[in-house]
């Protein structure tokens, strides 16, 4: 769960990491009102859940309320990598004399937390890391380890924080690390941490990503107004629909509707379609042990997508039982009806029961199954993939 800059700074404030007094606004009029009250020149920062905001023109300065309103009008029209600007953070403009980088993340390969620091902060930090790795300092710690001030001070010294600010710098590093552990973060970054002309350190930007799976442990986030949110750019209407239904779904530009089991074959199935010359219309993941209702909804998404010419179904029942799968398909066939050809394969856990459910329903109403070509363990999945590609070519006429 990625936080907005202003939310991350709220957490920084709680952990005594110095940030500017910022105010947020949702409209040009609000921007005008806020800036009217302020005596100093401001910076208007678009709040979006993506990087590259500065280069995309999402950060602007203004000297007074009128200029701020004009600038804000432009910003609220912006879309940055598909994210519309809905909130602007207004902060005093800083006179910056030096930019540092501080970050904490998880080194998954070594199962460590890593504190990263550099004396060359800013947008080009990755280039610095790639070209002059000796300008990047890292300290690895076990999840159970405290970061002590003396180690933080050594880091602050290495990245060139001035002597008189070493203790402050060390405190910021320790507090950032504590914030990371306290809130189950995956990533916290201050980039840049700036040294201002009046000799103060200030976290000029925040990037905080928390572990969605641990948010339940932090109900206080809700009290701060920080809630689960959609982190992708603007969605297609169908992606929005899938999100509302809790189904991981992504529109692609092909014509084969992918109706897979778990995420693993969800990814590899797309490769298979490509190998045989087809193009998937989507990516989808059923999640572990989907209910019949969910299975039915997955099919609705594909059936109602005009780009989809053919549906490719694959179910290897593990925690997801084939009987539930079959029930879901049947529910869809009865309640909604299938308007395009579907070729599918079903095997694994409870597959006999799945077959029995299909057979019975077919006996009762063969019409329901007129577009369905269902295979079992006897047909390799590659054959099904090939059939789907062939069908799509035939249906699409292209």
């Amino acid at each position, binding site marked *: 769960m990625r936080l907005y800059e202003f939310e991350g700074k709220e957490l920084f404030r709680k952990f005594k990491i110095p940030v500017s007094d910022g105010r947020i606004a949702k409209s040009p009029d609000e921007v005008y009102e806020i800036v009217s009250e302020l005596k100093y020149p401001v910076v208007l920062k678009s709040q979006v859940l993506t990087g590259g905001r500065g280069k995309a023109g999402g950060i602007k300065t203004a000297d007074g309320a009128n200029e701020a309103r004009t600038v804000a009008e432009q910003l609220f029209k912006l879309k940055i990598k598909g994210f519309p600007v809905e909130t602007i953070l207004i902060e005093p403009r800083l006179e910056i004399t030096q930019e540092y980088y501080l970050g904490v993340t998880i080194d998954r390969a070594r199962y460590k937390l890593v504190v990263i620091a550099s004396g060359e902060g800013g947008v080009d930090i*990755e280039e610095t890391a790639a070209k002059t790795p000796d300008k990047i300092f890292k300290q690895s710690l076990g999840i159970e380890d405290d970061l002590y001030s003396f180690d933080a001070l050594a880091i602050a010294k290495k990245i060139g924080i001035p002597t008189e600010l070493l203790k402050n710098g060390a405190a910021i590093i320790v507090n950032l690390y504590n914030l990371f552990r306290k809130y189950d973060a995956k990533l916290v970054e201050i980039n840049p941490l700036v040294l201002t002309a009046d000799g103060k350190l200030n976290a000029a930007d925040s990037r905080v990503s928390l572990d969605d799976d641990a948010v339940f442990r932090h109900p206080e986030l809700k009290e701060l107004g920080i809630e689960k949110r959609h982190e992708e750019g603007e969605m297609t209407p169908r992606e929005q629909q899938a999100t509302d239904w809790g189904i991981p779904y992504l529109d692609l530009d092909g014509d084969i509707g992918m109706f897979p089991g778990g*995420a693993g*074959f969800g990814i590899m199935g797309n*490769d298979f379609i490509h190998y045989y010359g087809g193009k998937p219309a989507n990516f989808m993941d059923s999640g572990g042990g989907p209910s019949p209702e969910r299975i039915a909804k997955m099919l609705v998404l594909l059936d109602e997508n005009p780009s989809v010419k053919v549906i490719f179904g694959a179910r*290897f029942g*593990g925690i997801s039982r084939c009987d539930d799968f079959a029930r879901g398909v049947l529910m869809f066939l009865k309640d909604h009806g299938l308007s395009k050809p579907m070729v599918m394969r079903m*095997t694994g*856990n409870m597959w006999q029961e799945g077959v029995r459910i299909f057979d019975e329903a077919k006996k009762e109403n063969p019409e329901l199954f007129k577009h369905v070509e269902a295979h079992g363990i006897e047909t390799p999945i590659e054959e099904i993939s090939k059939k789907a590609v062939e069908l799509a070519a035939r249906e699409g006429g292209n």
Partner: protein
Amino acid sequence: MAILVDKNSRVMVQGITGGAGKFHTERMLEYGTNIVGGTSPGKGGQDVLSKPVFDTVVECVDNTGADVSVIFLPARFVMEAAIEAIRAGIKFLVVIPEHIPIHDMLHVRREAVARGVTVIGGNTAGVISPGQANLGIMPDIAFKPGRVGTVSRSGSITYYVADTLTQSGYGETTCVGLGGDPVLGSTFDEILLKFEEDDATKAVVMCGEIGGVYEERATDAIRTMKTPVLAMIGGIYAPPGKRMGHAGAIVEGKMGTAQDKLDALTDAGAHPCKTFTEIPKTLAKLGV
């Protein structure tokens, strides 16, 4: 004859009284897995499927001699359950649930490494040594005893690969699902090296996917292995995954695309396969 679990393993289930726990315990028992009991705090003294239920793992180990445990509990209880099992002397632990907090898994990993315990998961379909023991939620239909080991991130890929090996007559020694969570109890290299030590395993199929860092970490192990390794990577045609900020790039380097991963593994001596049907062909070529 197998790695991690075999017919002599004494298997317990943490969360044996829960819905999923009970359902899959029954399936594991039907497969012939030597399940000796389970735990459910506050329900000690009951029986489930004629197996004794204990309040704590220590009691279960003391009374049943359990040495392997499978966890079926809500994600938020997994960390303590895993540490409990590790401290109680369990030597191999399978963590089925998904959505386990990442920091929790770091604690579990630390405890496991400190005490020499192997943990797989979370978000794994489990481990099966065909004909001997089936731990987790894998469907038994795909598996048959044989001479190839498999290790993969995803459950569904495990099934497809095993199905392929079974249909083509190779069969499997052990099939290991590492799990789909971002931080896992075990990594490819650790499992590959266990297969290397198993005489019955004549080749290993390793299936990774786009994202994460565990595939790249396997190259050193593959270079040292005599047992041939076949590699499949999912996501060759998928859009590149999101990186975790600058810090992610700095710590983990360039996030490998699926093709990068496949190239790295091939460079280390693994035999690349694109589809399942290429697996038996490659094995035949290698004379397995």
